[in-house]
């Protein structure tokens, strides 16, 4: 009798069925990708695509150097852009804070009626981009800063509301119990038990959202909601590439400064 005929099983990572399923999954993904690609490029005009390097070289040669003298007409729109972001964030905070307290399961006054409504408001405002809000508001309120501020505010509600209600739900229950053991009323529990715990994350969230809003408010003008985007739009329509280049540089500079400010402030708080 030879011992060698008894095969020792070779260790494998997955069973054959699992491996087959994995391959089928990958194959499905590839097939889906090919189908999507075909479907997407149905209406693509390939002549434009192959011509893109020429077009890029053309635009590049026209865009340099940026037209620096145009800067004097950009200060006012830049001020508007910063105002849209700041006032929009403030307005958003004002609407988001009550919503967050209604949506957090430990502070909501009614779990069955108000909480689902608040949660829906948070999700709905978050899933619509501020540019789409601006599109709607411009057609309702007319072009101008007001539409931009409201668009930023509406988009901010969902973001601030979601992060804030999660912070409220994560508060330490023992501090709340200690306050309520002193015979504090509901309002006192809120101000002395919960608010001090969420205040640092509240400031952090607000500054973070302000930073995002600066980015977003820079482009709202494309649909007529005021700010530097309006200048960008008119320069694009006139094919004034040196001005476009300058505006994009200004936007980039503003974004970098606001990111630096928000990083500093968040670092100081946390």
């Amino acid at each position, binding site marked *: 009798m030879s011992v060698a005929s008894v095969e020792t099983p070779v260790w494998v990572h997955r069973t054959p069925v699992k491996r087959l399923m994995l391959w089928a999954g990958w194959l499905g993904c590839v097939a889906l990708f090919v189908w999507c690609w075909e479907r997407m490029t149905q209406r693509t005009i390939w002549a434009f695509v192959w011509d893109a390097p020429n077009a890029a070289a053309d635009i590049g040669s026209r865009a340099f150097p940026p037209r620096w003298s145009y800067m004097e007409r950009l200060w006012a729109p830049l001020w508007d852009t910063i105002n849209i972001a700041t006032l929009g964030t403030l307005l958003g905070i004002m609407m988001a804070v009550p919503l967050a307290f209604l949506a957090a399961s430990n502070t909501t006054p009614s779990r069955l009626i108000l909480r689902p409504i608040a949660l829906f408001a948070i999700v709905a405002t978050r*899933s619509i981009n501020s540019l*789409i809000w601006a599109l709607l508001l411009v057609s*309702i309120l007319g072009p101008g800063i007001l539409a931009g501020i409201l668009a930023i505010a509406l988009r901010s509600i969902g973001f601030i509301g979601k992060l804030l209600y999660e912070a409220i739900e994560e508060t330490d229950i023992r501090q709340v119990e200690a306050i309520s053991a002193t015979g504090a009323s509901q309002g006192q529990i809120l101000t002395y038990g919960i608010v001090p715990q969420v205040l640092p994350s509240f400031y952090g969230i607000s500054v973070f959202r302000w930073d995002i809003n600066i980015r977003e408010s820079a482009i709202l003008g494309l649909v007529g909601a005021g700010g530097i985007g309006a200048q960008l739009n008119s320069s694009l329509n006139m094919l004034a590439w040196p001005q476009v280049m300058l505006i994009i540089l200004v936007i980039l500079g503003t974004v970098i400064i606001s990111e630096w400010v928000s990083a500093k402030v968040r670092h100081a708080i946390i």
Partner: protein
Amino acid sequence: MSTAYPTTWRKPPQMIHSRALRIALALGAVVYLVLAIGTIEVNWARVVAGMERAQRFVAGFLQPDFTTRWRDISNGLMESLTMTFTSTVVGVAISIPIGVGAARNVAPRAVYLVCRAIIATSRALQEIIVAIFFVALFGFGAFAGFLTLTFATIGFIGKLLAEDIEDIDEAQAEAIRATGASWLQLINYAIQPQVMPRLIGLSLYRLDINFRESAVIGIVGAGGIGAALNTSLSRYEYSSAGAILLIIIAIVMMAEYSSGYLRKWVK
């Protein structure tokens, strides 16, 4: 003689302890607010006239009209969805080598700097501005949108993947290196198993973001459902616009819940 203890308790200030600085900051904020609100020009006559439109919009939202413009809506939706999927796949495929290159612990310094520069460029430029340029270069339509979303995906996934690779458990990489493995084997056996679950999670999250963005870049001509929305709003067809917005909200909510569920399952 007993010292007089205060009989009332005042909440100590939480953030800024200097009283003068607090007052100065409050004054500064008030001055800024007055200046900022002063520069808002509101044409109240236009707003009042717009209220009638607002009513029609709310009415359109409550009675969405899916049928009249269904061809445009379904075309836009199809473009958005295909654009989302293809751009996520291509973007993730490109961002894997860039992410590996941008991780300090596995890439040489020169490669690291180049890859970080690519990531920084992609993150600093907003999707809309990139879309404007790609539309100017590649013509209107979904292809420009696909390129925009791919470009944005590279920065997002590349940065997070690089940070993930930098945070790996070095002991496992050490063990693989000790067997005399080449660089490729190191990546394949020490790095990839550690970052794979998170990479899948990030890709799903990016799929979700890309759909949201695909709804927006259509406004500047890069195809997708945003173009349909823009058209219906400029035609004042609020019931079609309401239908499109409801579809966007429904898909975003669905994507958010299912990607959250899938990410839990992958972990």
